[in-house]
């Protein structure tokens, strides 16, 4: 018994030749889409959902896990070589890593990012292994009110931490909630907001939402102001191996970044942005060479990259143990579970231990594969960056149409896809983040169910939400998350 015997049986699932192959395909695809601009892991998993119908669930999830981790590795490669971060969590890597590349230490920057991601990913996966079982036991005591409180907390963290302002984050969140309202109300069977269109009775698929907001929205946005001065890929010079001094300057940032990233990712405190920034300023303060920061300090790549990866792994803790996604990719992974009739949380650990532990074991394997694959293949990834942008985005549109149409074989879905794509374009134009909307589409209906069932159990007595200590404390934390930034701003203006 105990997590390690569970993990061992997980390895026996993940180490079959077939599943190793799926893991390899996953990390390969993941790295490719991570390197390529315009496509991220959320979109890739969403588009692969119809393709994986016939697959064993455990194989599909091993591949998805590879895509998830691979996307992170690939993203840092692009940031270092191209200086155009694809996501805000990579801004730091782009800053320092690109400077290193320009000074001829691009190979070392790639190496410290890759090894740091490996160290962080492995420690964080160990963290998942140890934390998940006790979390699942705690979750056994959770009722409707507690789950509602957790969802509200996830809403507040993802909303306050993304986008230009709280108001803009809230716009995204409530747009997602509004999209989630469409369809039959599960508790009463009443149609809501279907406007007489029968295809809307089953609601708007989260996959359509993600593909519309990410793929079509991003394509329209990029097309509207395509970079004409194509960014130069910095050629990789110098030894692929880090020098002794670079190792000495890297290993502590890796560990500190992991320690920052994993807890913040798993809390759920919304994304990888905060830990990477924290890690960067921490390394700058601790460094003996603070003057190098901004000019290509290796600590400034090592720490934030480790933090980024560790927090991405941390996101899997609330997803697997509570069924609570706190990022867009996690939301799509939750959809994937539901497609297979699986509900992450206590039941998943009890009823499908092979799947859960096979998935966790595959995270260790995928991480190792990525370390081995990434550095030698960097030439291939660089070549991917040379794909002409018009062809890349035209291809993204083809896959977006294909993936959406095959959901229900209905052109109504394609129309919805276009509407959401236009919405995604407008949101980008006005700095409204899209991730809160994707998370809200899937968690909104869940929140409503918990809310109404809790009130049915308490016979309409709203005090059920404040008399349960766990629920109350989670609600209070959510309140603090919203109020703290507002209060801080108020204090600043009063001064």
């Amino acid at each position, binding site marked *: 018994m105990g997590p390690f015997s569970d993990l061992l049986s997980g390895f026996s699932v993940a180490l079959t030749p077939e599943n190793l192959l799926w893991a390899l395909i996953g990390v390969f695809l993941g790295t490719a889409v991570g390197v390529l601009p315009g496509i991220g892991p959320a979109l890739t998993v969403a588009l692969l959902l119809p393709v994986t119908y016939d697959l064993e669930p455990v194989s599909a999830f091993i591949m998805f896990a590879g895509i998830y981790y691979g996307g992170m590795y690939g993203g840092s490669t692009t940031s270092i070589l191209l200086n155009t971060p694809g996501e805000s969590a990579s801004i730091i890597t782009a800053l320092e890593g690109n400077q290193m590349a320009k000074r001829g230490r691009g190979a070392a920057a790639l190496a410290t990012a890759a090894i740091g991601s490996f160290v962080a990913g492995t420690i964080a996966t160990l963290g998942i292994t140890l934390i998940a079982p006790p979390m699942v036991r705690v979750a056994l005591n959770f009722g409707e009110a507690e789950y509602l409180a957790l969802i509200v907390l996830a809403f507040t963290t993802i909303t306050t931490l993304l986008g230009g302002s709280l108001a803009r984050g809230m716009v995204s969140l409530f747009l997602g*909630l509004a999209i989630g309202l469409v369809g039959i109300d599960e*508790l009463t069977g009443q149609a809501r*907001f279907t406007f007489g269109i029968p295809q809307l009775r089953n609601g708007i698929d989260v996959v359509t939402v993600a593909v519309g907001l990410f793929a079509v929205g991003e394509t329209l946005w*990029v097309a509207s102001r395509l970079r004409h001065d194509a960014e130069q890929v910095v050629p990789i010079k110098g030894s692929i191996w880090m020098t002794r001094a670079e190792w000495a300057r890297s290993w502590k940032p890796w560990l500190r970044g992991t320690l920052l990233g994993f807890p913040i990712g798993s809390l759920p405190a919304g994304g990888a942005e905060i830990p990477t920034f924290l890690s960067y300023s921490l390394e700058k303060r601790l460094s003996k060479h603070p003057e190098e920061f901004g000019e290509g300090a290796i600590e400034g790549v090592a720490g934030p990259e480790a933090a980024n990866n560790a927090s991405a792994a941390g996101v899997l803790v609330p997803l697997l143990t509570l069924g609570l996604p706190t990022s867009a990719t996690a939301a799509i992974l939750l959809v994937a579970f539901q497609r297979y009739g699986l509900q992450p949380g206590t039941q998943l650990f009890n009823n499908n231990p092979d799947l859960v532990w096979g998935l966790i074991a595959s995270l260790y394997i995928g991480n190792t594969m990525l370390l081995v694959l990434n550095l030698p293949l960097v030439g291939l990834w660089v070549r991917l960056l040379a794909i002409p942008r018009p062809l890349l985005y035209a291809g993204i*549109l083809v896959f977006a149409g294909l993936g959406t149409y095959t959901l229900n074989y209905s052109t109504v879905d394609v129309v919805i896809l276009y509407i959401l794509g236009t919405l995604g374009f407008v949101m*980008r134009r006005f700095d409204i983040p899209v991730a809160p909307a994707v998370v809200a589409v899937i968690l909104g209906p869940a929140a409503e169910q918990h809310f109404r069932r809790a009130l049915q159990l308490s016979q309409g007595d709203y005090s059920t939400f404040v008399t349960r200590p766990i629920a109350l404390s989670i609600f209070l934390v959510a309140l603090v998350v919203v109020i703290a930034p507002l209060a801080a701003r108020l204090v600043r203006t009063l001064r």
Partner: protein
Amino acid sequence: MSERESPVAPDEISVPPRVEASGRSALVAELLVAAAVLALGILILIETREIRVMRTYANVGPRVLPTIVGSGLVIIGLWLAVETVRGGGARPSTEAEDADVTLPTDWRAIALISVALIAYLVLLERAGYVIASALLFFIAAFGMGSRRLIRDLASAIGLSIFTWLVFTEGLSLRLPAGWLGGIL
């Protein structure tokens, strides 16, 4: 918002490239977004009254969340308007690698891609997947400024046929064959 200033879209900002879109027209565009959020909230509140409620569920029925969402959108719309007027104007998202936010909006590219998307929708179940996808690819690439027509056409046809084969032969999903039904 005065009538004369209305149809203001970001492309009408006649600033030279590389200058942040700013000024009154940007403010109006932003206020339009706030107004749209507000209007959506009101629409949801009105539509909520169409949802039938049975007595037993009156306390926690199917109208509760729509009411919360509708009211929320109304409040957020007003909030966004206040924030805009007080000078918290939006900077376009900087998250995309390939987008240069200092450029003005290229409406021609948007129009061409829209044509490509509409052609896809119209043709998908008539002309079939391969033709619709190839056209979508080709027009979209052209819209984004590619002028190597032969290479683009070859890529368009290649990708469409490749995905057709993978999905129909490899994964046995059924895609519309359309006009090429006898050949494919």
